[in-house]
């Protein structure tokens, strides 16, 4: 037995105190967790909203970019070819049978090419067509478009075996590449672009040009680079830009697959 009432009183008091402290600690920990959980959920919701907004913006920009390319293609290629057909047909002299046959044959050949080009363009305008492309095919398609519409030499290289990239992530990656290429065309005055896609533990994409570059201290007024950085951030990636005056620019994008 306990030796005195004081000791019983002390024992009971200390037990009650320990229990109270324990309950207080547990309740405080649960309340703190709930508060942090609420804040965390708010942050996650805000990030989701930013992601969805960026995704929508990206889709619109890709559509605009595609329409722009289609418009150029119609003007520069199809328009030119149809003009050639027109000239051929308008200059036919029915008296000169040899020349007429040649011109009709040429017109037929060009018309076949125009039909093929229009068919390709109509595919480009379909939203499913491009989004069904795998990442490498889509980049190759973009590279072909740049090759056909500019005097730049563009090389594209794939390292490692292609892995599946989430469709929404793929859209954003393509938009970053388009933005990069567009920046090079507009500002870099480059004659060569090299695009490399590397499938490792993470997806890596490099865009290297031999243009005029820019100093790291140079102030950029455009939205191009900051858009690229924001987009890489919302898909959990990182973008590294290295450039020196008159020494080209290299852009390295690293993105997780999921």
């Amino acid at each position, binding site marked *: 037995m306990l030796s005195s009432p004081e000791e019983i009183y002390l024992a009971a008091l*200390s037990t009650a105190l320990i229990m109270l402290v324990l309950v207080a*600690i547990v309740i405080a920990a649960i309340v703190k967790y709930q508060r942090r959980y609420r804040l965390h959920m708010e942050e996650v919701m805000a990030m989701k909203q930013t992601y969805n907004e960026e995704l929508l913006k990206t889709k619109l920009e890709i559509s605009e970019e595609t329409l722009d390319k289609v418009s150029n293609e119609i003007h520069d290629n199809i328009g030119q070819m149809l003009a050639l057909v027109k000239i051929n047909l308008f200059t036919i002299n029915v008296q000169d049978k040899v020349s007429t046959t040649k011109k009709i044959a040429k017109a037929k050949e060009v018309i076949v090419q125009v039909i093929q080009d229009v068919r390709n363009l109509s595919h480009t305008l379909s939203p499913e067509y491009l989004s069904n492309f795998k990442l490498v095919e889509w980049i190759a398609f973009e590279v072909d478009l740049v090759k056909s519409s500019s005097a730049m030499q563009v090389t594209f290289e794939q390292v490692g075996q292609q892995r599946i990239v989430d469709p929404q992530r793929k859209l954003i990656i393509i938009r970053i590449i388009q933005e990069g290429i567009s920046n090079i065309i507009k500002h870099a005055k480059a004659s060569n672009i090299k695009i490399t896609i590397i499938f490792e533990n993470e997806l890596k994409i490099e865009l290297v040009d031999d243009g005029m570059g820019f100093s790291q201290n140079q102030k950029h007024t455009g939205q191009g680079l900051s858009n690229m950085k924001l987009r890489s951030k919302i898909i959990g990636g990182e973008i590294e830009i290295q450039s020196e005056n008159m020494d080209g620019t290299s852009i390295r994008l690293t993105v997780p697959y999921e």
Partner: protein
Amino acid sequence: MIEASPTVLNFVWTASFTVMTAYYIYLILLLVACLLGFWCRKSDHTLKIIMWLLFALVVTEAIVYVMAITMKLKPQFFLLYHIYVPIEYLFVSLYFSKHIAWARINTAFYLLAGMVVLVDIYLSLIAGDVFSYPGKNLNVSGFLIIAWSATALFSIRPEIDRSIFSFPVFWIGIGFLIYYSGSFFHNFIYGLLIKSDSGLAAKLNAIINKGVNDVLYICISIAFICSHRLKKYT
């Protein structure tokens, strides 16, 4: 020859029944927690620390069982607990330090680990007796483990669609909080009672000490089950 009265016999029988039943319940719960530790999938690798701690305790208790029950080496088996207490502190504080996201925690862990081991050696070999219950050693490491577990409870980082009750560290934190708080109380009362009424002290030991141990192993078992479910469904 002095014949024991039926009341005294009844008390002794009840006391020994309570002590042994509590002891076996404690051993069963410890074994269950240890087996769950080895069987369950680990959602976080730090749970392996607790798994090996339980294994160390099972080995200790097996040796204690042989020494105390079979070989009747009653006070000598306390030596094993003097060795086990600092080991337990190291394992438990290492586990909690992995769950506290403060940069200075690792330094604190190493400093305190060294200090606790030194204090335990002092209390066991110089200030106390290695063949007696290591109450003071338990109080020293208990005080620090309460601080570790409370800090770990407040450091749980929220995750989407996860309640605090699904985190193994929550259950392990609660388990050690209850165990060491109960231990403080037990050591205090046990120290007072052992001088005046050793039978009641043993009974109280069975109820409080084994009771808080049972709560600890139930909490650890829940932690392993939470970890298993988490790993399975992610």
